[in-house]
């Protein structure tokens, strides 16, 4: 039995490389000063999906929501072995919080679920499994996957380290509960989140890198080729070679705009403060008894100690 697997991924700013330069004076983050990367745990999610495909057959479709630049992580997914990729891009999706994001992603999964070609590829009908990384390193919330599962009405299995087996419409996995390990069996369709303890991602294949190098989404083509006629011709040529990246907007996935973007987001950012400490922001304490006693006294006074 082969399976249709969808992997939800995110392109994130590399928060590990944040320096003072990436922070503006008003405390907001200058995203353009940071390299954008494939969210690390999403690479493990892709690997888990590819391994299941190798064992049982099927298709791996990778979906991301973001600006056209997010196609970089879609191309990387193709290089690592994904069959199809989909970019969801729409200005009206900007400023979506986790709830609005999960709504949009669930609409995209629903659209894939209804595609007839997925039923004819020797697979179970529809989407059988969604795999996500546990959390993204820019927000670290881990909320989007459970919220997406709820929107789909599917069970979720979080913090998976190993998918043991899929058989008889059920999936068996080992998950880390934080206090120990738990083995669970879950009916399909379902949604998994995997941690960085799941098998390490395979490197992109050199052959595939060459093969998908030219792939582009329409949004990228429009940016790179300003002349509309030339852009159309280029898109048609890419499509003929199977290199046109599927691109959907909110209308394509039948999303209700009231549940997307800023309007669809119950949480609002009230204030952002930078906590990047630019060197010499600390109080220098001399290694003397008196200076150390003063420091300890201050820590007791502000309730840090005791």
């Amino acid at each position: 039995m082969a399976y249709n697997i969808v992997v939800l991924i995110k392109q994130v700013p590399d928060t590990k490389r944040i320096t003072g330069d990436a922070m503006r004076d008003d405390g907001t983050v200058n995203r353009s000063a940071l390299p954008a990367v494939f969210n690390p745990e999403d690479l493990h999610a892709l690997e888990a999906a590819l391994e299941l495909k190798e064992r049982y057959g099927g298709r791996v479709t990778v979906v991301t929501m973001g600006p056209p630049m997010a196609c970089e992580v879609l191309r990387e997914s193709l290089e690592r072995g994904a069959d199809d990729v989909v970019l969801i891009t729409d200005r009206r999706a900007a400023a979506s919080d986790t709830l609005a994001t999960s709504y949009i992603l669930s609409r995209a999964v629903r659209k894939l679920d209804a595609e007839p070609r997925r039923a004819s590829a020797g697979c179970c009908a529809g989407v059988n499994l969604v795999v996500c990384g546990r959390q993204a390193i820019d927000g670290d919330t881990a909320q989007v996957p459970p919220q997406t599962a709820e929107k789909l009405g599917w069970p979720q299995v979080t913090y998976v380290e190993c998918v043991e087996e899929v058989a008889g419409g059920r999936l068996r996995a080992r998950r880390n509960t934080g206090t120990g390990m738990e083995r669970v069996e879950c009916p399909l369709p379902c949604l998994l989140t995997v941690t960085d303890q799941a098998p390490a991602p395979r490197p992109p294949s050199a052959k595939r890198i060459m093969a998908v190098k030219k792939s582009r989404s329409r949004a990228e083509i429009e940016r790179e080729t300003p002349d509309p006629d030339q852009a159309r011709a280029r898109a048609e040529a890419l499509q003929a070679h199977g290199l046109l990246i599927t691109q959907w907007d909110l209308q394509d996935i039948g999303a209700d705009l009231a549940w997307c973007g800023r309007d669809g987001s119950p949480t609002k950012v009230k204030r952002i403060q930078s906590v990047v400490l630019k060197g010499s922001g600390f109080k220098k304490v001399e290694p003397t008894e008196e200076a150390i006693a003063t420091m300890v006294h201050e820590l007791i006074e502000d309730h840090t100690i005791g």
Partner: protein
Amino acid sequence: MIEANRKGDVWVVAEQNDGQLHDVGLELLSKGRELAETLGVRLTAVVMGADVARHAERLIHHGADRVVAAEDALLAHYQTNPYAKVLCRLIEEHKPQIVIYGATPLGRDLAPRVASALRAGLTADCTDLDIGDHVEPGTKEKYDRLLLQIRPAFGGNIIATIVNPERWPQMATVREGVMRLPDADTSRRGEVVRFKPDLSAADLPLKILDHTKTARKVNLKAARIIVAGGAGVGSKENFRLIWDLANSLGAAAGASRAAVDSGWIDKDHQVGQTGTTVRPALYIAVGISGAVQHRAGMSEAQKIVAINADPHAPIFQVAHYGIVGDMNRVIPMMIDAIKKRV
């Protein structure tokens, strides 16, 4: 969707595993007490499981005015769907204005499921909560006494304050160990409400095949104070000083990867990207140069004291107090000062 209910209680979802209450629920009750008093409403603890009403007294002693105990044999072992179903039903019925959860693996699995079902806002991993007013920049609409949800983001490089003005209840998960856990007040009295959810097997999609508990040697996440040693400590013998300073503060001992790789301390004590991420009230880094991988796991500590012989060590960039000196002299002076003051 739940309408804004200004008279609604403040709720704390108290997590329990195998008959044991998780400390984070008790920590949240102390913060919840402050919030409820500011708002002039009751503080309710919700506990779910097979046999959980027996935890009511302890929850009341830690600040709850009322305990809702949802008991069903099918809730004996946690799984997402039935817990979310029961909690949604309780929230729809009682309309609390605030619901807070521990940001434990369980809380981070449950809370988003509930938030999605209720179409409510949820803020993850808060390090502080407060009550305050808010003006929405777009509409200029003013909202009184909202829950201010304060959390680090962007790998700890920014602190964001989040509000949910319109869609209630206002919900947040809160990191373990960031709120104080005061002693129980055994004179407190409160009300206990038992709730029978009447679940059926169809509410439990997962089959739990087996589960094992891994005993951790140390719970760094829950530690309020951590004293951590790195390569600069120099030897296993010298590492004794780290333990001595930790003991004088009632703190946990932590370590950088270099110290773990040298075999001076067990891997369970490792702080950083490949170890545990901590955000204690105080982090004392001794002989730790402060590579970015280490800083990623500790830079969110509220106060950082760095002790290092090298004045150019990057750890000083994130420190609040920096001592350039020999730890063999500095640590005994610190222990001395702590003993005199406490």
